[in-house]
């Protein structure tokens, strides 16, 4: 692999923190546009050959395990207080383990405040960027990621799990049902293989058929000769000068030594928990509340998409594990329809996991026949996942833990979430509808899966038109510091019903263009 090295005191480089969906794409796009980039990535550099079709092994290999804590009324604070979010720590970030369902956000969701009106107890806002402005970047993202059902890319073949899901969905009265929008190659494309249906998308795709920055954007950036990737390097603190412009990043290398990389600009894409944490941990005399936090928004309005699952037990065999992790979606419930008792919407998605994950996390307190009868009929199960819009609330936030520290001596992040009544109502609705779909397909029994540690993290550095309403402008540029950028899901003012990653990529592409055109 071509390795380019820039000097620590080279203050002309852009430093990108994180190499996942946001950081990986931003870095490669900046390189393509002629910028020189240093990418600090806390995790190791792996290859497809390192991945294994083994849920427990991969979990240890790929997961961000650094200490975190949780508080508040959300179910995860009780079931998984030390592991409230599920993200990855490796070159490629969470795109190593994502399910690859890729969407555009519906136009009305980008104006949530206008559409839903005032919702007591929530801090709804409209996005400072419209659907029309995002459209060309979504289009680019779909091409770059190879999203099925776009750009003439055929859909993936139907799987067992999808067949059951589709049949149940239609019998339950749904019309908008499809196995589409996978950022997974249905045929070889872009120098990458087609999908062989291993069914271990969550464990790293050994064929490289599923889009991950690890083997797309990272090598693209490397090929420019302007990319210096530093795996095993954790950003600890962003420094600034007397004029309030950032000057570089203090980081710890894999061997524990600390270094300071100077920079012309810094872009933070550590996923929406580590990103605000780093800004808060970078507090200084001039910015006592943390960088870019004069308005007090850093870490606030954390959203995560409501998740839950339901598992149907069938008389006939299903073998849900034969093929892709996420089979497809029912779109009907993603509409705006407050008559259901909640604003916002959700997607129902065909999902499968193996026995290890099924036993470990779906019912964390599960025991007895009630539980074991589902596990022992594993090959007769079919699963449905919920991806819903949770409401932004100002006190749902990432803060620095008052006492607990990580290995570098820095405060760990605490995630506090008190669920809004709207969230609870939407989840109950999902459980009812998912059960209806499964029973319509013939399930004789249905088990509700608990909400899991959040795999979609958003909102903690929200974009806003006005400086007092958020952390960055509509391009992810900090209102307070012109050469500091946020480049991940932290930017999302609201979480929407759609899985976030395609929009993270679109925003990164748009940001790269903005950086090059405004900062040179």
């Amino acid at each position, binding site marked *: 692999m071509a390795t380019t090295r820039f000097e620590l005191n080279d203050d002309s480089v852009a430093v990108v923190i994180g190499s996942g969906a946001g950081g990986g794409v931003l870095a490669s796009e900046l390189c393509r546009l002629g910028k020189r980039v240093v990418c600090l990535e806390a995790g*190791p550099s*792996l290859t497809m050959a*390192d991945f*294994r*079709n*083994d849920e*427990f*092994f991969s979990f*240890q*290999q790929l997961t961000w395990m650094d200490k975190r804590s949780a508080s508040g009324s959300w179910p995860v604070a009780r079931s998984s207080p*030390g592991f409230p979010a599920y993200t990855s720590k490796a070159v490629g970030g969470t795109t190593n383990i994502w399910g690859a369902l890729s969407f555009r956000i519906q136009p009305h969701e980008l104006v949530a405040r206008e559409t839903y009106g005032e919702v007591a107890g929530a801090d709804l806002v409209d996005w400072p960027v419209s659907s029309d402005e995002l459209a060309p970047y979504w289009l680019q993202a779909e091409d770059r990621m190879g999203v099925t059902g776009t750009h003439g890319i055929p*859909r993936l*073949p*139907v*799987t*067992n799990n*999808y*067949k*059951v899901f*589709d*049949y149940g969905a239609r019998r339950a009265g749904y019309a*908008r*049902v*499809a*196995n*589409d929008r996978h950022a997974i190659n249905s045929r070889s494309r872009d120098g990458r293989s087609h*999908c*062989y*249906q*291993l*069914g*271990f998308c969550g464990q790293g795709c*050994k064929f490289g058929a599923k889009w991950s920055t690890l083997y797309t954007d990272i090598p693209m950036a490397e090929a420019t000769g302007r990319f210096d990737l530093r795996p095993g390097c954790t950003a600890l603190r962003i420094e600034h000068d007397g004029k309030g412009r950032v000057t570089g990043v203090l980081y710890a290398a894999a061997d524990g030594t600390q270094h300071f990389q100077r920079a012309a600009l810094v872009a933070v894409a550590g996923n929406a928990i580590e990103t605000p944490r780093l800004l808060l941990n970078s507090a200084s005399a001039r910015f006592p509340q943390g960088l870019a936090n004069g308005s007090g928004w850093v870490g606030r309005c954390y959203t995560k998409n409501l998740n839950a699952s339901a598992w149907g037990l069938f008389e*006939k*065999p*299903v*073998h849900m*594990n*034969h*093929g892709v992790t996420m089979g497809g979606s029912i*779109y009907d419930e993603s509409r705006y329809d407050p008559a259901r008792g909640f604003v916002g919407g959700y997607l129902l998605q065909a999902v499968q996991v*193996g*026995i*290890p994950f099924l*036993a*470990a996390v779906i019912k964390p*307190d599960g*025991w*007895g*026949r009630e*539980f*074991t009868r589902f*596990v*022992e*009929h*594993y*090959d*007769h199960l079919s699963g449905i996942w919920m991806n819903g819009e949770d409401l932004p609330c100002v006190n749902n936030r990432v803060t620095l833990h008052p006492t607990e520290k990580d290995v570098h001596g820095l405060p760990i992040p605490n995630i506090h979430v008190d669920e809004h009544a709207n969230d609870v109502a939407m989840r109950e609705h999902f459980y009812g509808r998912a059960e209806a779909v499964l029973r319509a*397909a*013939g399930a004789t029994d249905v088990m509700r899966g608990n909400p899991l540690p959040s795999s979609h993290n958003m909102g903690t550095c929200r974009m806003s038109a006005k400086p007092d309403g958020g952390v960055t402008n509509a391009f992810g540029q900090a209102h307070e510091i012109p050469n500091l950028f946020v480049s991940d899901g932290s930017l999302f003012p609201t979480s929407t019903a759609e899985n976030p990653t395609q929009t993270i990529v679109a925003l990164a592409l748009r940001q790269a263009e903005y950086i090059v055109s405004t900062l040179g």
Partner: protein
Amino acid sequence: MKQTDSAATGNLDRRQFLVSFIIATAAALSSRSFLAAAEPVDTSPASADWQSVLETMFPHDNVDRTLYGVPSDALVSAAEKDAGTRQLLEAGWQSLSQAAGGDWSSATGEARSRAIATIVGTPLFVLLRQTTVFTFYGNPKVWEVFGYEGDAWPFGGYLGKELVTVDWLPDPPAPAEGT
């Protein structure tokens, strides 16, 4: 990162890994709340005792009983190696026996289930559950009985093989455009 074979993969190191896993889990759980009231006892529960607890918690009629021995042996080994784990397990065994009417081994299945219900969510429950999840539900011999094939890499994935074995439902209609 270099991953050695010690983790979830089998062979020599696997047992050692399980024991360390249990000790670490017990330590994490104990620091949260539990140990204070533990009284020393003379007789430590044996592997067979834990096995019958685990069979009550996770009953499966079709599974070879020896497969439950993997987690219960590992629990006993961990208790032998680590005082904190021993304390948690011995105190837990006592409270379970009491909740089952005084003596676990002579208690009815129903009494045992009632006893388990009293420990749901406690550190003991979490330790027993996590140990079982890892060593029993993570065991390919158990998967085989329940119809989970695990690793699909050796045969190259399900494409063109058994991707669709559901023959008891019609094929989905051709998808509408724009969904």
